[in-house]
């Protein structure tokens, strides 16, 4: 063996550490928060994201982002709820929709408002139903609840891959909160994850997840191994296909009623259609779910809830600047989470909706 092998091996570990530090995502570290009856990112934790976009997120208490100053009684709080699109690890804190909203609103001579983001990957409408009353106790001066709907799936019942809470349709429509998972080994895993984050060894965690647990929507590697001779087949769907699920007007009415039940302040739904997008080498500008979302919008309107669709604004961004509101240079344009342009547009839309609600000012 080459006599320089031990030296080379040691030096190559430095490359691994450097690569982790520059190119790997932090490992999510959550702890049980009794105030919200759920796991939340540790207060003060900095989460670095590199696999999609390039962002840094600093969490405040109870998993709130952009929360400094929200307890100022003279300032109303706009709570922006959502899933990974509001969690927004892909963009720096300074470009998230809550921060952008604050910049826009502060430039207006209007009632002082401050936006905060409360988002978690895997959340859906059921999660917001259970979380809104709990956060109301933490942030008493919430004046608007803005719920960001990243896709129609967030409103569909009987989905299997949302976390913590479920929206079911049988026997009747209902929101169910799952009991929290066992906490016995959680503390140990949390310490291990924090250690790996600090020492640049996240790759070990992600390798473990890929091999033993499986990334979201994928089987773990250990269950995908095949040693038997096979038969060539056509290409599969690759990732797990989403469950077929339907919702009718009654289901939308249920959602709206439940949200009004827990929110004593105005609710704004902001819908993020997956347009414009790149599909099979073509630009798609028409939302395939527009009919369904129109029904939801009508139900919202009939029940005093503000509904904002981003379809026009997103398509306008592409028409005017050939840019997509989703996607990053290190992923694919038009695919994935909102980029900085997308967050800016959503912030503008929220500001316009609130302006119209407060002052009757219509925006184009």
């Amino acid at each position, binding site marked *: *063996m080459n006599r320089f092998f031990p030296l080379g091996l040691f030096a*190559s570990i430095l490359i691994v550490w450097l690569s982790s530090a520059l190119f790997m995502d932090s490992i999510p570290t959550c702890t049980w928060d009794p105030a919200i009856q759920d796991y939340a990112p540790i207060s003060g934790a900095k989460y670095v994201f590199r696999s999609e976009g390039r962002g840094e997120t600093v969490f405040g208490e109870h998993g709130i982002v952009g929360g400094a100053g929200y307890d100022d009684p003279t300032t109303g709080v706009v709570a922006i709820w959502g899933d990974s699109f509001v969690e927004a690890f892909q963009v720096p804190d300074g470009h998230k929709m809550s921060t952008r909203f604050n910049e826009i609103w502060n430039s207006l001579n209007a009632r002082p408002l401050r936006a905060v983001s409360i988002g978690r990957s895997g959340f859906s409408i059921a999660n917001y139903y259970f979380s809104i009353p709990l956060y109301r106790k933490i942030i008493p001066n919430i004046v608007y609840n803005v719920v960001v709907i990243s896709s129609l799936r967030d409103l569909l019942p009987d989905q299997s891959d949302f976390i913590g809470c479920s929206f079911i349709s049988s026997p009747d429509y209902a929101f169910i909160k799952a009991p929290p998972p066992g906490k016995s080994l959680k503390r140990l895993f949390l310490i291990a994850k924090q250690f790996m984050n600090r020492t640049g060894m996240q*790759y070990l965690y992600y*390798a473990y997840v890929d091999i033993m647990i499986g990334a979201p929507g994928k089987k773990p590697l250990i269950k995908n191994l095949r040693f038997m*001779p096979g*038969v060539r087949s056509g290409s599969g769907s690759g990732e797990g296909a989403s469950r077929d699920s339907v919702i009718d007007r009654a289901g939308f009415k249920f959602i709206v009623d439940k949200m009004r039940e827990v929110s004593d302040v105005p609710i704004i739904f902001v819908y993020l259609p997956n347009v414009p997008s790149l599909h099979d*080498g073509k*630009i798609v500008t028409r939302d395939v779910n527009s009919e369904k979302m129109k029904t939801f919008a009508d139900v919202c309107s009939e029940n005093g809830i503000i509904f904002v669709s981003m379809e026009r604004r997103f398509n306008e961004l592409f028409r005017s600047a050939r840019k997509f509101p989703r996607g990053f240079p*290190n992923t694919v344009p038009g695919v994935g989470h909102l980029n900085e342009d997308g967050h800016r547009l959503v912030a503008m839309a929220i500001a316009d909706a609130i302006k119209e609600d407060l002052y009757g000012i219509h925006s184009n």
Partner: protein
Amino acid sequence: MVFTQIEFFIFLAVVFLFVATVKGNETRKIFLLAASWYFYAYWDWRFLGLLLVSITVDYYIGLALERTACAKTRRALLLFSLIFNFGVLGFFKYFNFFVTSLAGMLQPLGLNVSTLSIILPVGISFYTFQSLSYTIDVYSGKLRSCRSFTDYALFVSFFPQLVAGPIVRASDFLPQLETYRALSKVRMIEGGRLLVLGLFKKVFIADHLARYVDVVFSGAGLFDMATTWLAVLAYSIQIFCDFSGYSDMAIGIAKMLGYDFTVNFRMPYLADSISDFWRRWHISLSTWLRDYLYIPLGGSRKGRGRTYFNLMVTMLLGGLWHGAAWTFVFWGGLHGAALVISKHYSLLSGERGLRAERSLAARFAGWAGTMFIVAIGWVFFRSQTFTDAALILRHMFLDSTGIAWYSPFAIGVILAFSAYYLYYVFRPDRASALLFDNIYSPFVLMSMLWLTIMFYPKDFQPFIYFQF
């Protein structure tokens, strides 16, 4: 099973364990043959039968060729081998292509031939050419026929090169099977280096570049000029790393097992003429085409016009070998035309291939021109249709409007490659140090291995040359 799957490394470990413990040459060869057939059957066991039939036909033709003195009979045997091998290849690979292409002509004649649902057996282009080289060499007397069915079957089926080359010559490989080759630490290390290098090129570079290239080429015409150029350059590196990476792994694994394959790529993007490019790119294929197509057609022995014709035919068929599509044929034709022009120029200027006499400026101009032609060729090679290729070319040269998407990874790889190649020009000994015992190679190779593992793509990217 592909070289980048976990299952393959488990399979490889079992193979090495057996080879290390078994001392007899015959037992070892039978085991390697069984392992190679399992490797092939893993993909689709139904086509193992086709491989066995091909092996059996050419093995017995080889024996018959040597036993027969009658010229007419020998010609008939060779013809049978050619028809059988090309027939099988033609049916599985080109039937639907020709039906689709000729449909317009056949319909007015009242002939409605529909396409069939045909699965292309993996590696058929490679093992067919390999078998043909054997029967042709036996026919021409350059090689004695192989007396051992096991040896011949192993020559065709040997798993490191079975599905994507390099195309191994019987004259190179069969003698190596005659003697027992003990595993050696030196060969294990040398082969291991190539394996790691190949894995890095394929998994870390080619597969990640593919994500970018695939989107830009599928959306031909949607992206701006800089993005389109970036994608074309990225594809140039992707296809090199994908294919040379596989070759490196194949050569490395064979070396670890005690067998030597010839180099298949030799810094092709340093070529300063198109003929030099083809002496560096996919060497096993280019030499096969030279020895079994170009030279039998007459090569350069029958005058200038015939030489140019032979070059064009060779390159057009070489293009067709790569895939059943007119874009591949056009790519071959483009290279053929470039070779003809290059040949004509060198004949006119009386250079006779003495590159050492060319000035640095002339060599740089030659390099730049060659790389330009190669890059344009890759546009046709990669595009699904001529329309897509035309859109890509339009956005490379004429139309700067479109979506801007500058992948940091693609930019980084192109810059790193350029820096390495520049370093190689001035210090070839230092730049090749990776493959030898020195202070750098363990660090670089281990880093490559870690990076490959850390950033292993979540979704499967097939080897580009698997489709051939």
